[in-house]
């Protein structure tokens, strides 16, 4: 496939896992903006402290869809504190790499997971763990400008 995408990126783009929404989601995280060209929205179902189900909706390029799909696979069934340790680098490695111009998509996936967990804590009226705080600050130009 085009753009120097790996076989795994190609697979997750062509057959994305966990696409959709969750009714009565316990946490929803949305990052990115349409002006920059990508938005990711992640829905979490949380039982106890485990992410029992996850879905995503993404507006974006092939890499954005593939990283969303891979990130949801990597946190599904995992305890929250483990999901919060998900790094963009781990997502990229799991996909066998991304072209340099597309690395920001993986940052977006990490941020979307964190934003969804933060939303879960907020909804429960609990303090938001420090790990949920975004390191990117939403400045797209910082990563891909």
């Amino acid at each position, binding site marked *: 496939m085009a753009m120097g995408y790996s076989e795994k990126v190609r697979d997750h783009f062509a057959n994305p896992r966990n696409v959709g929404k969750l009714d009565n989601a316990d946490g929803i995280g949305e990052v990115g903006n349409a002006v920059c060209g990508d*938005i990711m929205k992640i829905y979490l179902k949380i039982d106890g402290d485990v992410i029992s189900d996850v879905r995503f*909706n993404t507006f974006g390029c092939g890499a954005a869809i593939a990283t969303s799909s891979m990130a949801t696979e990597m946190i599904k069934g995992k305890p929250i504190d483990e999901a919060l340790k998900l790094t963009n680098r781990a997502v990229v490695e799991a996909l066998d790499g991304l072209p340099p111009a597309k690395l920001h998509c993986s940052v977006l996936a990490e941020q979307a997971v964190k934003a969804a967990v933060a939303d879960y804590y907020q909804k429960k009226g609990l303090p938001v763990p420090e790990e949920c705080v975004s390191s990117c600050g939403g400045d797209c*130009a910082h990563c891909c400008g």
Partner: protein
Amino acid sequence: MEKIIYMDNAATTSTGRAALDAMIPVLEKDYGNPSSLHQLGQQAADLLADARKKIASSIGAQPDEIYFTSGGTEADNWAITQIARAGAEKGKKHIISTAFEHHAVLHTLKRLEKSGFTVTLLDVHKDGIVRVDELEAAIRPDTCLVTVMYANNEIGTVQPIAEIGAVCRKHGIPFHTDAVQAVGHLPIDVQKEKIDLLSMSAHKFHGPKGIGALYCRRGIRLTNFIEGGAQERGKRGGTENLPAICGMAAALEDACKGMDERAKRVAAMRDRIIDGIVQNIPHVLVNGDREHRLPGNVNICFEGIEGESLLLRLDLEGICASSGSACTSGSLDPSHVLLAIGLPKEVAHGSLRLTLDEGNTEQEVDYLLHVLPGIVSGLRDMSPVWEEMMAAENN
């Protein structure tokens, strides 16, 4: 591998039979240097002269008005920098162009701006067409060059070149046109259209890559671009790429034969695609004027989705297309052409360009129209932007 449906002819075309048949003998046996005096050299010189003649006559020019280059980009660079330099010598440092030129023109103009030139970029309006009265109004006493593309590479809109030529001739200002997308596809007559300089590229009309030409009218002073030997009348040194030049000439001659009929057939497929999309897929925008348009160009924005994912999904179905989204350009901004016609960035990200030629078939058009609605709705189903649009619409 499944059959590929190639709908990206504005990026490049297949190398045609005419070009191959002209090139292979030159590669195999006519290897002489056209500058050599022996018989092999003179055979090569004859081939070169013949190619130059064919190319000149296809645009209504004289052979000594054609300079071979490495392609359209070099021809644009040469024309603009050298005419600007001549202007500067007379104290004229103002250039008029448009906001949606190819980067070969825009980036050359940017560099000139850094060395003290002023550039006026004309609005191309929502329809992607320059207004001649606005161009004339932009002319100043120190204007040394007008450069307006013949037809836009992304949205396919054809500019009023003859009218622009007449205005420039009236004011005595050299007029250059980047005709890379037009040569071989539209009838061009540099004399009637009063074009002083024109850039062309062989691989856009089934010729080989890496070869193009600059037409420069007699009487326009063109300074040397590459110093070296006496090739191209001393203005562009370096042994000529004869196989490519012969391929280019044969391809152009072939493209000009039956051009009208071919254009009609291609335009009918183009219109069937545009109409089919507009009728069957909601929330789409056709980019660029539908009448003054290259026969093979389709450019449409699909709201709520991003262009790269759309073209990759098409690729999975065997259809080669292109997009002006930021993700395909490697920057944050979508195509400058789509922004120049006033599209908001979020809409411009969802653009799809399909460029057809005579090699495409009605069956391929059927197949495209069959798979596209499903791809678009699949991507929209997973798009938070689309979800928001629909929510707003239902309220």
